[in-house]
């Protein structure tokens, strides 16, 4: 077991370095220079001298190998350098936003669990009835609806509902306050993006709950429980659901990893100053160091989450053994 964990962790290192390599060379090795983009981006005039100074300041006059090894060493020591746009350390800029994104991601996961498990259970228990069809349509639609459009619809709904009830149009607040400082304010701001993302991500989990529960309900031990005259509710809730949860946990875990990427769009809709927004901004401003930093952070979270899910899977199901 420990050997397996160690092996997986070690295998992660080349993957992450490879990802760093990919990002680095995508941004650096192509023709076109950061400085040219920065100085001449809006068609402004610049001369060779300015470009040289700019390159020196950013360390771009060094050989690529040196630059790359600096980047990887920086990654290993959690020093991601300074933002090319604001000049402040990347890590400092990121940490402010990370909190917000993480909270939305966790809330969205909770929303998706609250939607998925009851709906999936209903759908399985009432298989091939109208309840099942409604749930399945809702969940297929969930995959098709873009989360940013759902976000816009939620904002529209908030606008018109608040107008009906209070007479004035209310919009969620824009500046972030941590949950522990002002819970109501915080939730009134972050609940909506969590619902928009959570609904979308619940779709896959709902389908997984349904199919997994259907399989378990056909097992012998469920038949035994029925034969003993046990109440159907108890059979489903106590006996079947527990065993059916295994693949659902995996799916929810995988989605949590994807959430970090998926939030990019939702944050844009709700004007949230999160990590995804920062990424889009830094891409727009050609801020290469910041882009690298954020992308690598997301990759790390993604790879680590997948690893934890694998471990969790074995921990939940003793039948699975590592080799």
């Amino acid at each position: 077991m420990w050997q397996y964990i160690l092996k997986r962790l070690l295998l992660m290192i080349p993957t992450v370095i490879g990802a760093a390599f990919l990002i680095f060379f995508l941004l650096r090795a192509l023709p076109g220079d950061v400085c040219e983009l920065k100085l001449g981006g809006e068609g402004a005039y610049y001369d060779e001298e300015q470009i040289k100074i700019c390159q020196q300041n950013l360390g771009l006059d060094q050989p690529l190998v040196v630059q790359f090894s600096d980047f990887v060493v920086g990654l290993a020591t959690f020093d991601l350098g300074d933002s090319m746009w604001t000049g402040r350390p990347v890590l400092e800029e990121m940490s402010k936003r990370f909190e917000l994104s993480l909270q939305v991601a966790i809330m969205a996961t909770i929303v998706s669990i609250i939607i998925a498990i009851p709906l999936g259970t209903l759908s399985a228990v009432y298989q091939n009835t109208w309840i099942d069809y409604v749930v399945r349509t809702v969940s297929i639609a969930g995959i098709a609806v873009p989360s940013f459009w759902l976000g816009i619809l939620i904002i529209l709904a908030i606008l018109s509902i608040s107008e009906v009830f209070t007479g004035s149009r209310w919009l969620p607040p824009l500046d972030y306050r941590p949950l522990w400082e002002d819970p109501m304010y915080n939730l009134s701001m972050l609940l909506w993006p969590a619902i928009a993302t959570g609904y979308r991500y619940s779709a896959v989990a709902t389908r997984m709950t349904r199919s997994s529960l259907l399989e378990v309900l056909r097992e012998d031990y469920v038949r035994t429980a029925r034969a003993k005259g046990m109440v159907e509710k108890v059979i489903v809730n106590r006996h079947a659901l527990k065993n059916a949860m295994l693949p659902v946990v995996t799916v929810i875990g995988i989605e949590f990893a994807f959430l970090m990427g998926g939030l990019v769009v939702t944050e844009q809709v709700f004007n949230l100053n999160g990590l995804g927004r920062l990424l889009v901004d830094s891409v727009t401003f050609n801020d290469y160091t910041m882009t690298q930093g954020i992308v690598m952070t997301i990759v790390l979270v993604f790879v680590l989450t997948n690893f934890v899910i694998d471990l969790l899977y074995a921990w939940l199901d003793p039948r699975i053994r590592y080799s």
Partner: protein
Amino acid sequence: MTDATSVDDDVLPPPPTIWKRMWSFVKKQPLGTAGLMLVVIFVLMAIFADFLTTHDPESGEFFDQFTRPGQVSDASGLFFLLGADEFGRDVFTRIIYGARTALFVGISCALIGSFIGLILGVASAYFGGWTDTILQRIMDILMAFPLIILALTIVIASRALLQGLEVENPNDYSIYFVIAAITIPFIPKCARVVRSSALAIREIPFIDAARANGFSHSRIIMRHMVPNVMAPFLIMLTAFVGQAILLEASLSFLGLGVQEPTPAWGLMLRSSQEFIRDEAFLAIYPGLAITLAVFGFNLFGDAVRDALDPRLRSQN
């Protein structure tokens, strides 16, 4: 000694005609048929956009700005079925032409991505050894990125590339870079799935027989292995189209995909955000178009998967 095959009729029943097979698909997969119909509608919209619309998709008159849906503009006397946007362009026309953009991106990404994935997956399984190890490590690296993050990174890199090439109108090329950005993350996904099927195929003796015949590697891969992994390939292909449409819309919504004035659904939603307080209608229809298109392709894709992969059929 009687010949066992000449009992009653040694003639097989005639193979079902294409119409019969289509009818049996419709009967077995009502949802998939509905999806297919949606897909056909969008394809027709894209092909016949010129005949279905009366307005110019890329420019409008400023005084028609924000004409309400279903109203005739006072200024120009033109009718706007779904209203006019902030430049006085007809929303209906832009949605119809937007189908062209969406389907062009969606279908080309799905085709290119799954085809490269198919070749790499089969080659990886066929050659094994070092080729397999190296290819799989590269796929691992690509898979370490959430899809949209990798796409975003490719978009920024492509902008640097354009800057370096000093082309005249960089915006004209944006759509091709969007296609590249969406296609590349699809490759490892398809390669993985195809490889696992191809590994099983390689163990079947007919591959050894082909080798013994002295066929070239490329002939064995293309003629003997590829046809046998068509099922997972087609499943991935159909699943990718919906995903690609959604991704293109997301990238355009972020301002990093297709650029103005090209009609694209994500782009329309992006500009609608600014006027959300008073001109809510602008945000409704493009989103509906994305949802219906993705819904159609997903339903159809699910049906294809059910039809091609009997193992998955019982689960859904």
